[in-house]
């Protein structure tokens, strides 16, 4: 619990990934040692603390790739090299190590944890990457992950439409065992259906409001499952059992909200 106190770090490097997405790099040994799929709680003093996936590591540095959404993410976007931010974690359960050919399926900033997953793939299994975004300029890490197919909602690059619409074509010719995915919940839901119908396995990284990150507060519950501690990466069986997944999320007060 002494570890669950924010460590104050200086931003070592920043990079703009898209008009709305920025990566920051911090010297932070604990998170640099995390499993792909694990996340950290990032604290911007006087603003707030939010859960962010680890998007890559290099030696004792970790990277976080953050979409400009509201108050706290906007504060993080304003940080420059040398500015301070608090980090605690890593938290949660990450992705398993791939043991056979697999597909990486990322939507929006969901590509962030998958980038770290890709970086960490030390086994020799072939990974096929599919990436979707709203528009061409919002596509993340396409080259780094050697994406085979991309899609955009506005058709500005690759497939015009949702990335889920091309999964089955990609799977046709390939001997794939498993999909690793993160991104909008409808995308994950669709991937789940595809995996079920084709007998593939699946691991998905989920998001909920996370106020503690350690399994205490219950703000991140899906049914009775603590996404922060027992997730955020969940397997197919677990996902398939949820009654709320893909349909409901919870607001900060605990009220249900349709996804």
């Amino acid at each position, binding site marked *: *619990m*002494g*570890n*669950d*106190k*924010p460590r*104050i770090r200086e931003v070592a490097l920043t990079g703009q990934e898209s008009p709305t997405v920025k990566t920051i790099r911090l010297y932070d040994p604990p998170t640099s040692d995390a499993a792909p799929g694990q996340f950290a*709680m990032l*604290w911007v*003093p*006087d603003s*707030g*603390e*939010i859960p962010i996936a680890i998007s890559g590591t290099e030696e004792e540095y970790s990277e976080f790739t953050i979409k400009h959404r509201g108050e706290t993410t906007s504060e993080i976007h304003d940080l420059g090299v040398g500015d*301070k931010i*608090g980090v*605690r974690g890593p938290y949660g359960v990450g992705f398993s190590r791939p043991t056979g050919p697999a597909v990486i399926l990322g939507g929006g900033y969901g590509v962030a944890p998958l980038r770290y997953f890709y970086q960490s793939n030390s086994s020799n299994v072939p990974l096929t990457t599919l990436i979707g975004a709203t528009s061409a300029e919002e596509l993340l890490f396409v080259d780094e992950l050697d994406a085979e197919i991309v899609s955009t909602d506005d058709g500005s690059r690759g497939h015009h439409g949702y990335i889920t619409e091309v999964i089955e074509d990609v799977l046709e010719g390939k001997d794939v065992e498993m999909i690793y995915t993160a991104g909008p919940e409808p995308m994950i839901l669709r991937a789940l259906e595809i995996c079920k119908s084709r007998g593939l396995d699946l691991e998905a990284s989920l998001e909920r409001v996370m*106020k*503690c*990150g*350690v*399994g*205490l*507060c*219950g*703000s991140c*519950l*899906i*049914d*009775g*499952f*603590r996404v922060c*501690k027992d997730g955020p990466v969940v397997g197919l069986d677990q996902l398939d059992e949820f009654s*709320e997944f893909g349909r409901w999320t*919870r*607001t*900060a*007060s*605990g*009220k*249900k909200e349709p996804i």
Partner: protein
Amino acid sequence: MASSCRATVKTVGNRTGTSTKLLGLKFTNPLFLASGVMGTTPGGLKSAVDAGAGGVVTKSLGLEARKGHSSPNVVGVDCGYLNAMGLPNPGVEYFTEELSKVDVGAPVFASIFGEDPDQFAKLTEIASGAADGIELNLSCPHAEKVGSAVGTDPDLVERIVSKAVDATDLPVLAKLTPNTDRIVDIGRAAESGGAAGVVAINTVSGMAIDVETKRPVLGNVTGGLSGRAIHPVAVKAVYDLYEGLSVPIIGVGGVETPETAVELILAGASALQIGTAVATCELSVFRDVDRGLAEYLSQEDLSLEDLVGLAHRN
């Protein structure tokens, strides 16, 4: 972390049951989920029961939905956590409605918080729609006007409890704050008001400051300390209440192992609640502690009831 969750009580002997009757309710074991920890949704409550909890308490519910305090809401300290959630909850009606559709699998106490006796009465009435008991939160250390603001004045406590008792047929528990020099007076006031039992303790007032940014860490500045750090404070509170009260006491604070559980029972607790340990240990902490408790009872050849308050014999 995990290491502190292991039992140090010896575990030889045959397992005996720890099922218990209390407040007119039946529990498969005396280890309940504490308010505010995981129990923000009926699904969270059910998870705790599936993991072995003998009963559960909901997150404290108010009349209106509340988002809670701004983040950070939780910070780790030595042997515990500070939290300042700020009583986020979807409102008593919303929660009761949702709860009424779920079979939690064990008795559910609805925890409620309000500003005055009338609010508590109204909350009690609504919450009684789906709960098996009511727990009055008179003790949250980091919410303005509610919580311990209403829980340190014995007269007010008596009026709140008595109004709540009038508003329901269910057993009403009063949850007490340790941040006072009058916990026994307050417990007695709750008893006079008709409380079927008291729950002790809520969190201990505390705060953390980050030395690099020189800012309080919690969004709310101050918060409540929970976990093993406060276990000795809980033992003392339960011990003192046992001397001063006749209603059953439910002990809370730093229960993580069979040993910490037995300590509170010896001090006078008839049942226990577990909060922080669902984070520092696994959710199986309910089952693990229950198993250790059962083995302890069998080894000592005592029933659970026999054990309650045994440290007072003289």
